[in-house]
């Protein structure tokens, strides 16, 4: 094949790159899967394409349909790209406090942005989208948090790619957002080698949860329980903004220009490597650094950037 039918043919099949220079243990190798190489710039291209194709197969989507989706950014951007190619309209419910680049990319692909309160983080975007959907049932609500096509994209794509490229994998580390990557890849890898350990990396909830009125406003994505997340995850660890940014900068120093959540994930992989005697850790870089230039990660004083990151949604 000398050329692709359209840009969507380029989704998936991302490269795995050795970053063992960051391993604190000479007997542990670390490999990073660069999801920023997807055409829309993030791991969410897989999820967006899978959800739309699944809805098309089930006859839910007619030409010119309008999609509605809550997203802290990457899923919105990916859905916007897929919608442009396939001729759908898209409305994205997004927290106010995401980086400016995310907003601009949605404009580039012609999506409409509906802002949710920044203090409520992604939970607030989910709540607002549910409310809007109740008033506009004609809009198609793919809802990445409950849509099985989300983890299935990883069960059928990301997981098999990792297994093909690195059957020696002993530990899988990824960020926890919708949980789609972790439960999809984790389920696949454990089916092929039950000894594989799955580690989730979380951003600190910090100020993002100050908008919650009670603990009952908490949220667990339905796909997490539907796919047996409690059984798939072996460990869940929090990585703070400073550590995330420090590792994001170290990645750039070794030639990998990745987003802030990739720094968190790498910090988690390093923590994992410290805790085991030997093994091969595969860690997911969800996106590249482009959408975070305005946050000053690579150019400004780290104290200033950390303060900014505390009030920003970067997962």
């Amino acid at each position, binding site marked *: 094949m000398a050329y692709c039918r359209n840009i969507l043919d380029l989704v998936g099949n991302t490269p795995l790159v050795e970053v063992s220079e960051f391993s604190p243990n000479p007997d542990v190798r670390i490999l990073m899967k660069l999801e920023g190489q997807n055409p829309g710039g993030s791991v969410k291209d897989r999820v967006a394409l899978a959800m739309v194709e699944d809805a098309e197969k089930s006859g839910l989507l007619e030409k010119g349909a309008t999609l509605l989706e809550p997203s802290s950014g990457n899923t919105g951007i990916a859905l916007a790209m897929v919608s442009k190619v396939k001729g759908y309209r898209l409305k994205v419910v997004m927290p106010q406090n995401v980086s400016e680049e995310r907003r601009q990319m949605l404009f580039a692909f012609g999506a409409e942005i509906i802002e949710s309160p920044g203090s409520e983080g992604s939970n607030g975007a989910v709540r607002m989208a549910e409310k809007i959907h109740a008033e506009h049932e004609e809009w198609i609500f793919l809802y990445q948090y409950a849509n099985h096509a989300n983890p299935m994209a990883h069960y059928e794509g990301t997981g098999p790619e990792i297994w093909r490229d690195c059957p020696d994998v002993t530990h899988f580390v990824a960020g926890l957002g919708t949980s789609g990557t972790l439960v999809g890849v984790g389920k696949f890898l454990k089916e092929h080698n039950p000894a594989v350990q799955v580690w989730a990396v979380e951003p600190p909830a910090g100020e993002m949860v100050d908008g*919650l009125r009670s603990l009952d406003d908490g949220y667990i994505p339905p796909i997490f329980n539907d796919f047996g997340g409690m059984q798939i995850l*072996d460990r869940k660890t929090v990585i703070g903004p400073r550590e995330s940014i420090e590792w994001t900068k170290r990645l750039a120093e070794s030639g990998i220009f990745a987003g802030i959540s990739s720094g968190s994930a790498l910090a988690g992989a390093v923590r994992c490597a410290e805790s085991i005697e030997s093994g091969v850790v595969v860690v997911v870089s969800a996106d590249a650094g482009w959408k975070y230039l305005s946050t000053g990660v690579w150019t400004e004083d780290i104290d200033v950037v950390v303060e900014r990151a505390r009030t920003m949604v970067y997962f």
Partner: protein
Amino acid sequence: MPVEIRLPSILRVHADGKSTVEGNGSTVGEILEDMVNAYPGMDGQIVTADGSLHKFVNVYLNDDDIRYLSNLDTSVSDGDTISILPAVAGG
């Protein structure tokens, strides 16, 4: 030695507005129980009546979610910190 417990803003109202409190015990469960004895307003909010963690509450020992350690039986050492946070999503 008492262990430091960090509270989310929504629980501080039950702890005289404090963002950190202390509790004694050798496991996370014992320490949380000690805390609830001191601040009865938190009764049932973190650990439910059946003795399990509230489904929308994550409790961390240092940086690790105790659900993937030994849950409320996770043992605690001097200098450890417990953090209580509501479950949130990303994406």
